[in-house]
C-alpha cells in the first residue's frame, strides 16, 4: 500500500536495535529530523563514536577537525548511551591540550563510556593523561597511545577489564599504581615501552598479557615478568630482553612468540660487518624456549624458527615438552627442517600441528656467513 509509513510504526525497541547497527553515528542523529515522531529517539540509541584525523600533520586542518569534533560532542552529550569513544590524531602538539582534556573529560565524566581510546601516531610535545581521569567506574576498555602516565594519587579504574598502553616511558611505581587500581583487569597490553625491568602481576583475574616491542636501554638489564596466574602470554616484535621462566609464569597455558629479530643497521660500506647482538639474541631465544617448555599451546614466528635452526647447528637440544598444540607462522624453507625436526622430537605429546604459510617474505640469510 503506497503512502503508509510502516517504519515509524515499528515498536521502539526494534527501531533502536536497527539504528544501533548504523555504521556512522552521525546518521543516528540525523533521524531526529525525519519527522516530529523521530525527534528524540536517537538519544536512546547506543552509539560508538570514532573521530580520526591521522593522515595529516597540518596544524590548521587539525584544529578545524577538533572544532568540528567538539561541535558534534555538543549534541552527543544528550545521548543516553555512548558505548565507545575513540579519538586518533596524527600528531600531538601543545596547541591541542585544551581539546584533548575536553575529550577525556567528555568520555570519562560526562558520557561515562565503556570503551575509550585516545591515540597519537606521533608526538611533537608531551601530553600527560589528566589526573581527574585516573578515577572512573564506568570504563571497561582503555587504549592510550603516546600519552604520559603520571598518577599523583591512586588509580581507580574499578570496572576496567582490558588496558592497552603504548609508546611511553613507564616506571615500576606507575605500573604498580595502575595494576592496584584495576582489580577486575583481565587483559593487559604494553607496547613500545621502556623504563621498567620488573613486571609483577599478582591479580588472579589478569589472565592475558601482551608485550610488544620492549626497548631495553641497558645492555646488562632485562625485563623480568613475574605473573603466577597468567594463562596467555604474547610476546610480539622485539622482545629479546623479556624474560620469563617456568617459575615466574607457572600457570601459562598458551604462549604466542611472534618475535622479530632486533633491528641492526648495517654499515653499507662494511661488507664484513656482523651484527654484534646476534649471539645474545640466540641465547635469549634459547632461554625463552626453555621457559615455555611447560606450556600447552605454542606459536612461533619465522624468526623463532630461524633461531631453532641455528641453535640446532650449535648442538642445542630442545628440552622435552608436554605441549599439545604447535603453530608455526612461516613459510618453511629447507634450512628450517633440521631445527623443526629436533623441536618436534621434543614434543612427543603433540596432538595438533598447524603451519601457516602466509608469510612469503624471503628471509635474509646473513647468519649463514
Amino acid at each position: 500500500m503506497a503512502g503508509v509509513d510502516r517504519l515509524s510504526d515499528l515498536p521502539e525497541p526494534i527501531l533502536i536495535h536497527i539504528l544501533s547497527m548504523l555504521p556512522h553515528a552521525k546518521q543516528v542523529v540525523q533521524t531526529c529530523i525525519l519527522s516530529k515522531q523521530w525527534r528524540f529517539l536517537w538519544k536512546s540509541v547506543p552509539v560508538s563514536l570514532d573521530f580520526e584525523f591521522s593522515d595529516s600533520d597540518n596544524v590548521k586542518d587539525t584544529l578545524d577537525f577538533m572544532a568540528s569534533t567538539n561541535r558534534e560532542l555538543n549534541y552527543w552529550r544528550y545521548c543516553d548511551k555512548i558505548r565507545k569513544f575513540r579519538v586518533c590524531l596524527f600528531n600531538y602538539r601543545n596547541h591541542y591540550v585544551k581539546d584533548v582534556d575536553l575529550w577525556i573529560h567528555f568520555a570519562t565524566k560526562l558520557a561515562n563510556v565503556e570503551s575509550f581510546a585516545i591515540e597519537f601516531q606521533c608526538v611533537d610535545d608531551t601530553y600527560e593523561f589528566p589526573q581527574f581521569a585516573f578515577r572512573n567506574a564506568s570504563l571497561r576498555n582503555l587504549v592510550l597511545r603516546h600519552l604520559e602516565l603520571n598518577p599523583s594519587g591512586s588509580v581507580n579504574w574499578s570496572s576496567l577489564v582490558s588496558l592497552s598502553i603504548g609508546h611511553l616511558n613507564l616506571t615500576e611505581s606507575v605500573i604498580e599504581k595502575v595494576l592496584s587500581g584495576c582489580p577486575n583487569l583481565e587483559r593487559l597490553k604494553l607496547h613500545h615501552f621502556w623504563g621498567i625491568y620488573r613486571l609483577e602481576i599478582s591479580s588472579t583475574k589478569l589472565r592475558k598479557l601482551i608485550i610488544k616491542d620492549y626497548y631495553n636501554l641497558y645492555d646488562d638489564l632485562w625485563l623480568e615478568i613475574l605473573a603466577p596466574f597468567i594463562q596467555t602470554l604474547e610476546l610480539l616484535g622485539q622482545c629479546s630482553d623479556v624474560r620469563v621462566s617456568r617459575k615466574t609464569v607457572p600457570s601459562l597455558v598458551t604462549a604466542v612468540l611472534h618475535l622479530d629479530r632486533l633491528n641492526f643497521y648495517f654499515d653499507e660500506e662494511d661488507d664484513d660487518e656482523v651484527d654484534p647482538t646476534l649471539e645474545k639474541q640466540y641465547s635469549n631465544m634459547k632461554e625463552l624456549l626453555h621457559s615455555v617448555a611447560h606450556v600447552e599451546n605454542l606459536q612461533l614466528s619465522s624468526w623463532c624458527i630461524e633461531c631453532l635452526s641455528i641453535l640446532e647447528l650449535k648442538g642445542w637440544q630442545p628440552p622435552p615438552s608436554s605441549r599439545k598444540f604447535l603453530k608455526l607462522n612461516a613459510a618453511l624453507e629447507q634450512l628450517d627442517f633440521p631445527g623443526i625436526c629436533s623441536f618436534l622430537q621434543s614434543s612427543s605429546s603433540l596432538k595438533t600441528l598447524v603451519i601457516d604459510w602466509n608469510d612469503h617474505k624471503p628471509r635474509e640469510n646473513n647468519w649463514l656467513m
Partner: protein
Amino acid sequence: MSSEKLLTLKTRDGEEFVLEEAMAFRSLTIKNATSNYTINNTPLPINVEINTMIKVIEYWKKHSERGISEDELMNFDKKFFKLLHNSELFDLVVAVDYLADKGLSNAACEQVLDKITGKTPQEIRDIFNINNDCTPTSLGG
C-alpha cells in the same frame, strides 16, 4: 523419522497448521508457551498472520536443512529477502520479534538497516513514506 513430535498452531487470522516441534522451537515464544502445556489437540494460538507465518516457516525449513552449505544459505537469504515488499518485510520484522527467533530477527532487521544506511533524511522519508511534519522551530532541540 516417523516419530517427530508435531505441534498445531493457530494464527491470529484463524488459520491452523501443523509444524514439527523441533522447527517450531526456533521460536522461543512458542517454546516457552508449550513448556507447561499438556499435549492435547488444542492448537497453540500465536499472534502472527498466516501469510507472514508462511514466510517464517519457509525460512526455518531452509535453515534446518541438513548438510546445507554456508554459501547456499547466503544465496537463499538474499533471494528470500529480495522478494519481500517493504510491507511484507515490516510484517516479518514485527512477527519475528514476537516469535523471538534471534537469527531471523537480526537478518530481517539488517534488511531494514540496509535500506537506511547511507541515505539522507529526505531519501529515507521517500523510501518509507514518512510525512515530514517538522517545522523549522521544532528542529531547534
